[in-house]
């Protein structure tokens, strides 16, 4: 168990550094879409939610899991859609200006 934890910790540290480097390069113009996109990505909690729901071990776990899948799904659908909507609005001179 401890070695699994160690590996997870390595993954976490490396992913955080990678995240910091990537996000630093995101144009400030796009900080709002960035937030809605990362919000959709963090709905990855759907993975854990599906597992808890689908295993159907106890009534409590199924109820909590179903609520969690619902919450995650709201963020997946809402998050990606609104990010795409926002990005469609960004136009360069000449194309967008009348």
């Amino acid at each position, binding site marked *: 168990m401890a070695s699994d934890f160690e590996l997870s910790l390595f993954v976490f540290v490396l992913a955080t550094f990678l995240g910091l480097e990537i996000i630093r390069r995101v144009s400030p113009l796009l900080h709002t*879409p960035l*937030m809605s996109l990362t919000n959709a990505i*963090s709905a990855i909690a759907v993975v854990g939610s599906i597992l808890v729901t689908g295993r159907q071990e106890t009534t409590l776990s199924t109820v909590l899991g179903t609520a*969690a899948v619902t919450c*995650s*799904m709201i963020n997946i659908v809402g998050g990606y859609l609104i990010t795409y909507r926002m990005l469609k609005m960004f136009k360069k001179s000449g194309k967008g200006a009348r």
Partner: protein
Amino acid sequence: MIDAIIPVIYVAAAVSFILALKWLSTVQTARRGVIVGVLGMALAVGGTLAKPEIVSYHWIAVAFVIGTIIGIPMAMMPMTAVPQRTALSHAFGALAAALVGTAEFYLRTPKIDVFTMAALALEVLLGFLTFTASLMAFGKLQEALPTRPITYRGQNVVNLALFGLAAVSGVVLVASPGRTWLFPVFGALALLFGVLLIIPIGGADMPTVISLLNSYAGLSACAMGFVLDNHLLIIAGALDGSSGLILSIIMCRAMNRSFTNVLFGAFGQVKHGAAAAEERIVRSATPEEAAPILANGGLVIVVPGYGMAVAQAQHKVRELFDTLTKLGVEVKFAIHPVAGRMPGHMNVLLAEADIPYDRLVEMDEINSDFGQADVALVIGANDVTNPAARHDAASPIYGMPILDVDKARTVMVVKRGMSPGFAGIDNELYYMDRTLMIFGDAKAVVGNLVKEIAASNGMH
């Protein structure tokens, strides 16, 4: 067989998420980023559904349908409502993590090893506190709750004590996960702490707070990854956590404040100082008087702020932009990092109004242009233009980077009245000789400016 494929699918999902954020670096590639992000999520969901341990799809399907039904209208909200929408989705994300943590606790207790229980406690703590904190932020942004900070004597002591209590109960649970009675107490403390954390925070600090909550929501998903031994969750959560962290650092720097100051400083009460006693002269102008100055300028820099969003004036601003551009006036927009209620708020509003994004210039780049500008037109921005931030060490906003609006030949300020901004301080910009105050609702004033300019230049 399928057990061998799922890890591959998860790796592909992780790569997709990384590419999605990488492609967000420029506007040209950003849409591709969203598509690859959707692909990543589809892989993650598909791979998970294929796991043999899933015995029933019934409730999963029900939740998918309900989530989609709620998710679609949440994506269709107007751009002015994006800050509150974002706060609400942080709440959903954090709640999902907290609920899964709770379910896992009751399934596994008392046989949980120390590492897993520590991760689980962190997941539940961050999840529940982010849930209520985000709901509070939503309430403040929606103006269902008072946007002014609510403070009382000993507030920080109460908050810290509460957090300490939550931390201690978390540690006890890690040491002996069999104490199931303590778990609801732990969860309740986290929920309560989330509420109290946001009460003293004012509207102007929302960009930082919303970024911080973004980070917490990601970190709770990350902690879930530790509990479930799932590296995809860890990677996606860490990406979200680092994004929120970077944004909150940028926001803090743009206000020259520290995290602790934002969270415990209770900024934004109106100060009743001696300065209010002296009467100072303000020059006001009507749109008719201001129009020719704008029309005859070579370079006009528009400085939008939260007031523009409140007045829904962005479409009138676009008309002004079009009219002036037709007359050969160069128009740029100066975007302060904390203008509005969330990072990048002004950019999406102006982009929605069809203003080309290459006209939107960040603070560091545009500040050297104000010296050559004929007019700086401030619409609904206040504290981010206050020259006191540069030279008045006694000012609460001293040291905050500002837009050098006062260096323009003429400064025009569109404002409802002389009320102070969110920092609760007077803006000395309004009393300069070169400043013209145009009082009124931003939408109406800008509309009148457009009409005047068009009429006197034979345009329709």
